[in-house]
């Protein structure tokens, strides 16, 4: 089969735009050769009723599979310093792909052996009055999968610089600049954020890991006053957003929680406002 990309829009014979009609094929003369071959394959395998989109699906799969194999074979051939790809490379490529994506279940003798061993142990006795009978907690999905912000208030002291031990550029919030930030509130979990620094023209997210032990999770999210905010001088911001997320308390805990915009952050997903 030619590894040409089939034309996805030439859906063969969708009648009346109905979803999921069985085959009402357009005449095979109008179909591309790949599609005709696929129809023949389906017929040979005894599949007589199928939605028209199945052909496209099969052709796409074929194309993807063949190109993957051929690319892998090219890599093996260059690794073996051969000038051209030959059958051995293809064979190796197929084998590796088979072991990786198209695994099949274990063979029967292996299963019989494993089953024999497993079935020898007697059934465990059931403890009475044990409440809901569930496996140990680490095998259950009942643990919380979130962590609440820490609640420490700490006065920061540094002046003049934002300490930037870790820059995670990838976490830049890609919101368009909004000059009218209102109170340019920045979520922090406490910081040693220094005061004014020229940060114009930059957009970055700073994460300063906490050197303190993480605080105890609060059980109820409704505890008030958990938010620590930093009020940064608007002149700092300019026309760009700066997201500074740190784990240490800033000196300015403000009461601007009401106007706080929820920032897109990595760690703190559930800030209570």
């Amino acid at each position, binding site marked *: 089969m030619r590894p040409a990309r089939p034309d996805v829009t030439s859906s063969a014979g969708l009648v009346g735009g109905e979803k999921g009609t069985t085959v009402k094929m357009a005449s095979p003369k109008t179909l591309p050769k790949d599609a005709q071959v696929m129809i023949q394959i389906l017929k040979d395998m005894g599949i007589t009723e199928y939605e028209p989109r199945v052909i496209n699906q099969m052709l796409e799969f074929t194309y993807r599979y063949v190109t993957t194999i051929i690319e892998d074979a090219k890599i093996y051939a260059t690794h073996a310093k051969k000038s051209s790809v030959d059958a051995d490379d293809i064979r190796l490529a197929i084998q590796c792909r088979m072991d990786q994506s198209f*695994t099949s*279940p274990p*063979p029967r003798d292996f299963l019989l052996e494993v089953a024999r061993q497993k079935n020898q142990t007697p059934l465990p006795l059931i403890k009475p009055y044990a409440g809901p009978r569930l*496996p140990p907690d680490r095998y*259950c999905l*009942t643990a919380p999968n979130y962590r609440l912000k820490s609640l420490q208030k700490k006065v920061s002291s540094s002046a003049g610089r934002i300490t930037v031990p870790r820059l995670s550029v990838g976490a830049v919030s890609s919101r368009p600049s909004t000059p009218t930030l209102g109170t340019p509130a920045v979520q922090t979990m406490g910081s040693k954020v220094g005061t004014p620094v020229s940060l114009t023209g930059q957009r970055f997210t700073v994460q300063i890991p906490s050197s303190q032990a993480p605080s105890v999770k609060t059980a109820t999210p409704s505890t008030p006053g958990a938010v620590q905010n930093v009020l940064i001088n608007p002149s700092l911001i300019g026309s760009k957003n700066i997201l500074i997320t740190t784990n240490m308390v800033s000196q300015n805990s403000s009461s601007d929680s009401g106007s706080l915009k929820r920032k897109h952050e990595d760690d703190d997903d559930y800030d209570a406002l």
Partner: protein
Amino acid sequence: MTRLAVSAPGEKMAAVQDGGSEPEGEKEPQPELPSDGSSAPAATPASKPEEQQQQQQQTLLAVLQFLKRNKLIESVDALRREAGLADEPDEAPGSEAGGGVGGAAAGSADSADASALLSRVAGAAQSGAASAPAKGGEDQPDVSVVLSAYSQQGDPSLYQVYYSGLKKFIESVLDCHRAELSQLFYPLFVHMYLELVYNNHESEAKAFFEKFSGDQECYYQDDLRVLSGLTKKEHMKGNETLLDFRTSKFVLRISRDSYQLLKRHLQERQNNQIWNIIQEHLYIDIFDGMPRSKSQIDSMSGSLAGEARREANKAKVFYGLLKEPEIEVPLDDEDEEAENEEGKPKKKKPKKDSMGSKSKKQDPNAPQQNRIPLPELKDSDKLDKIMYMKEATKRIRLGPETLPSICFYTFLNVYQGLTAVDFTDDSSLIAGGFADSTVRVWSVTPKKLRKVKSAADLSLIDKESDDVLERIMDEKTASESKILYGHSGPVYGVSFSPDRNYLLSSSEDGTVRLWSLQTFTCLVAYKGHNYPVWDTQFSPYGYYFVSGGHDRVARLWATDHYQPLRMFAGHLGDITCTRFHPNSNYVATGSADRTIRLWDVLNGHCVRVFTGHKGPIHSLAFSPNGKYLASGSTDGRVLLWDLGHGLMIGELKGHTDTVYALKFSRDGEILASGSMDNTVRLWDAFKAFDDVETDDFTAATGHIHLPDNSQELLLGTYLTKATPVIHLHFTRRNLLLAAGSYNSQ
């Protein structure tokens, strides 16, 4: 074939040979060596050079092992020096035969993989073949079989001759024997074809296939179509079902007279290729008695591995029900049932025979109460039981004159996405598993679904009040239905727990998830199958559940163990349906290899094998008294099986498409079946089983001539507009509920 190069089965083989031919031990290596030397080149005139070399290597390995066993060390050293073999190839086949997958998967070179496959195939055939010499009782055919296994690879063109020769012979025998001997055609055809493909004779294989595939029985057509697409050895490697077919023995049941005829014919001919294949791949279960007729054979055959051996169905099955516990009922109720049997026997209602323990002694067919550990009843369970008994008194007695009313729950706007349905026992909740990987739970009664309040709100309620159990429920989020997210693939099986606290769902992503119906969240994901899990079911007493899937293994789990407790391995194809017996001691599995197996939970043994279906089995139902099993498959037939005797006792023909749902009514009087042909059919179960009681089961062969009484047993056919029926459920009062999704095209 590397019969001697394989470790554990090889030991057995060597033991048999050593026992029989100890004095010949010295002589045998000598004639072995030159004969091997001469046979190796003679064996492969037409094969490629690497094939020849591989065979020579295998032969040398085989000889080496044999010599080592007989402690002829010098010969071993000499041979090894001459051949230049390292030690390592000796280990590889042995360990791979023992360990299975790991070695085969890791082998990167084609030849190593093929040899691993070869040794695996030989190893498994080995353990079967070890019984063959015990049966045949002679050593010589083994050696000759080993050698001829090489030589027959050189004569691919003769396969057609052998097959047509056999065909001619079978056509010439007496009528009464012909039906039985015709059973040979299919397995012989498949094995010969696979031999040709395996040894890379593609054109001969294709010619062989074209010539003889049309002769096979119609019910093997699906398998033949799969075979027709398999033309190279590489194709065989990925197809586990075919590999299993090649390594397991196809069972045929033939009367002694027919067998003698066949044996005489095959042994008097010069070539005994077919005899070799029969010895290697077929298991002929001989019985004394009249040869069977074609219809009898047709009703029992159809499975991928032939029929079931007689010993497979001889183990004792405890099909009786466990005794119901005695429950004290508070007598301030307006209903005057007295469940306390000791106290007031006079007030017992006549319908209570299933509830009360009239006979204090143990039913001999019922398992002991403590045969498998079962959870004890909690107070809520006892309340449930009382409700159950109350409802049971209001139950309608069904029969041919009183048919149940059917209430159909149609799922709309699903577009063929509904893949599983289950009802709770008291019919208050429906769960649907969908192809978009969600599970949805609906309330059937007007009562809405509520979940437990969050921890914050729970701390606010008054814990001492009487209705605390209602107060913990959150009214604000009450709704008709709840959606459960968590799976990453279509959900193929759902099952409620008997106490309505949990819901299980099994999915294509290979996990079985346990959901809580009080918080509507996922509690556990049981990982064990790495392949789609087609069905799951809770035990009737809760705590245990069984799941079966694409990896051909059914697993028994308990909710508090993250690994399965039992593994039921033995099927040759995917397990499509798993059901517990009412006494929770046995599990029935229906599979794509067209057999049904009954497994003992206590020790994992397969106690029954039922063959007869001609397509994958999609539904199973145990009768409420535990004695019978009904099964439905893609061929549209419903078959009835007697568990105690291990026999087929009925066949209900009528459906024209896959039977996806089977359920017995609460007292077992009516069997309801729902199918893809958009109908629900009701059958008279009492009559179907009554007819059987009178027959004489002591016929050792166990061949029942099934009366063709489907029409008399059919009590009613109810058509839906365009909705295939996926699930059936009898309420406690014997109202039939059915479920399916509307198929708009």
